[in-house]
């Protein structure tokens, strides 16, 4: 049921996204767009002792995209870059804990893709397509 997708906490994260905004001197900035729908997310991270010291995101997108990106920033805060670089699709799906239809999967995973893009760039690694999932 698609209605299960729009539980109160998802709408709350959409309307009041946590960690929404920018950082004054971020160590990494990453950005990507879902070409099929136009959703876009930018992540900014401050690195402290190889960990996510602070994190903010901005973006335009649907409730699923904004809520999942926001939850991901909360989840990533304080984690080591190595841990974040190994975040998977299932980690995000567990975080948002709502049923996601396959057409909306891209919305849910855009934040993850952008965050990993930034971390991989920072670590000097290349994000392979299969890593997105």
């Amino acid at each position, binding site marked *: *049921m*698609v*209605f299960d*997708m*729009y539980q*109160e906490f998802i*709408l709350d994260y959409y*309307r009041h996204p946590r960690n929404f905004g920018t950082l004054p001197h971020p160590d990494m900035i990453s950005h990507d767009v879902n070409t*099929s*729908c*136009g*959703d*876009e997310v930018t992540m900014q991270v401050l690195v402290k002792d190889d960990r996510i010291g602070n994190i903010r995101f901005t973006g*335009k*997108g*649907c*409730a*699923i*995209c*904004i809520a999942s990106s926001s939850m991901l920033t909360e989840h990533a805060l304080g984690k080591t870059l190595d841990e974040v670089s190994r975040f998977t699709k299932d980690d995000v799906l567990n975080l948002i804990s709502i049923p996601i*239809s396959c*057409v*909306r999967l891209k*919305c849910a995973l855009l934040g993850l893709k952008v965050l990993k893009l930034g971390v991989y760039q920072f670590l000097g690694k290349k994000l392979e397509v299969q890593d997105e999932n």
Partner: protein
Amino acid sequence: MRLVSRFNPLDVRKDFPFFEKGLVYLDTAATAQKPKAVLESMTECYVEHNANVHRGVYALAQEATDLYEGARKRVAKFINASSGEIVFVRNATEAINLVAQSWGRANISKGDVILVTVMEHHSNIVPWQMLAKSAGASLEFVPVSKDGLLDMDAARLSLRKKPKLFAFTHVSNVLGAVNPAKELIALAHREGVPVLLDASQSVPHVRLDVGELGVDFLVFSGHKLYGPHIGVLYAKRSLLEAMEPVLGGGDMIKEVALSHSTWNDAPWKFEAGTPNVSGAVGLAAAMDYLDALGFDAIASHEKDIMDYALEGLDSLGCVAIYGPRDRVGVISFNFGDMHAHDVSSVLDESGVCVRSGHHCAQPLMGELKIPACARMSFGVYTTRSDIDRAMEALRKAKVVFGL
């Protein structure tokens, strides 16, 4: 061909096997469903008359050629052109690219300006950007006024500067606004500016007459016209004759020697390789079908649906509608503070198909200052009960989204 004396959408709907699925299809502006007559004409083309065209001397090959060229005549008649002015291509996008790559390369040079509008579909922006980049030309855009109409004063001013071409859409695929094509073409011609008209969103709704419009180039897609995936480029004969082909190969040549080749006459010189015969035949059948319904009847039916849907959306109380009240084919809207994808997902759950996103019109989205919108679009088969089901789904969505 089926003749309907009085337009009844419920009868019309029976002609479209698609609706057996029980879906409410409100995305006709993206692609229209196909009537049985179109599907049958295409099947018959493959079962009864399949041979390569313009080739064999056996009777069957001649039948196939006659069908294909007959379809060209039918398309010409539909827009009041002559068949030598009709080029079959893949879609409207390809037709615009053909003009850009052929006419454009020969006529646009460094420092020239190509005039378009901000309400264009990407297909009427990107080919000109590509041409401008290679030729050292630039693009200028006619803006949209606050009421969602083309800014005519700005268009006049831009035309006075004599751009090399004015390319614009007849009907916006987002706003539904109908641009005064005849007036704009006359204004452009007064300045000696040739015009390309993108009729993709108008041809399913209004009767087009290239003679009356006086337009130089006109493009549209068959699949939005209840036909198959084929496109049409109309160009005035003198233009087509002067234009160089873009694709080389079989059928587009008169003679081929090892050192050089000579081109076939227009329109065939633009149709390299085996063409989409069943597509052309299906498109001709779609035109027969629409003519039998009658454009006056189609227009009055679609206006009824449009007004009914606008009323319904207004009554929801949380809907922002983009574009003028007086419109054709589409209603683009946003629902409270929800993103269009969320609206579309919830409608999908109720079996209602609406488009969401930027509608291949990102510059216009920027102008409207929205990232995306949802869009309902209508056709000959749309009924008031489709709209009722959509409104019911939106009322449900209102509760789900806490609006």
